[in-house]
């Protein structure tokens, strides 16, 4: 199963991720 998030955000929104990274509920995905 998969969860897809699609969202609008200011252009300076940045992800703190890398592809293939393991993640858990509540961990930060990105910030402004």
């Amino acid at each position: 199963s998969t969860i897809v998030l699609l969202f609008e955000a200011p252009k300076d929104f940045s992800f703190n991720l890398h592809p293939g990274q393991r993640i858990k509920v509540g961990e930060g995905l990105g910030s402004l």
Partner: protein
Amino acid sequence: LSTARRSLPTPRPLPLLVVTGSGYLGYQYYKRRDQHDKTALPHLATPTQVALYHSFPTRLLSRTWGRLNGLNLPKWLRKPIYSLYIWTFGVNMQEAAVEDLHHYKNLGEFFRRRLKPAVRPVCPSSCMTSPADGKILHFGRVKNSEVEQVKGVTYSLENFLGPQMRQIDVSSSSSFRDLLLSSPDNDLFHVVVYLAPGDYHCFHSPTDWNVELRRHFPGSLMSVNPGVARWIKELFCLNERVVLSGQWQYGFFSLTAVGATNVGSIRLYFDQELQTNCPFYSKGSFQDRSYVATSNQVKGAAVEGGVALQKGEPVGEFNLG
């Protein structure tokens, strides 16, 4: 000293050079091949291969699998069966609210296990948090109304979300992506989280937002593992999914749960009407439920304009079959 020198092997530069040289060349070859594999475009399935897989009765298989896993196991069989599952998929039972394997009547119940209250702290400084345990398959900005499910393999945003209330003005050059944006200073972003069989399968709200619409797309239930996502274009548009859309502090927001063969049904805690993986559906159809008009009936504490969800709040779960 001279006896010791005679007993040492005579240095042979040529074989030494051949061995080290070929080793170095081999290392360079594998290094370049790895780099090429990472940069090369994925090998996509042909339309015939997609049609063949799509025609496979994945929904029937999924429901059969679900029924099988809904059968209660005798107590003596529970520990060996669940232990095998734990060992195969690397489940961390120390995080489970109930660690005693005898407690779970069947594999379906074990799959829906809850976690201990403190094991998933919600990041207070980040405005966007992970909705699920899993692996980040892809993320980034949405360009030209095409979203990448994995690097280089795209799907249409319009096919994925379905038509929007605000219709595109045919005379203007605005795209489907522009239609979703509330401000030209904003951009559209996406994240794909893949949940492996051993992961905790409930999903939570990634931020504070208002859900205004639930759109259920019945569809195929092909595997969504990263290998298949690299192989089948538009996989997320072909599979059964539930799209929750609404608004957050910066504008449009949506969370979509995509089903798969093993994990075919999706449950929302605040919406008991939703029924997924049902035997009959018409191809290409979708069912909408607006929470704006019925917010008081959906959730006692719902605010005007939809269902208010808070960051980290449990939203729903995936189920076997």
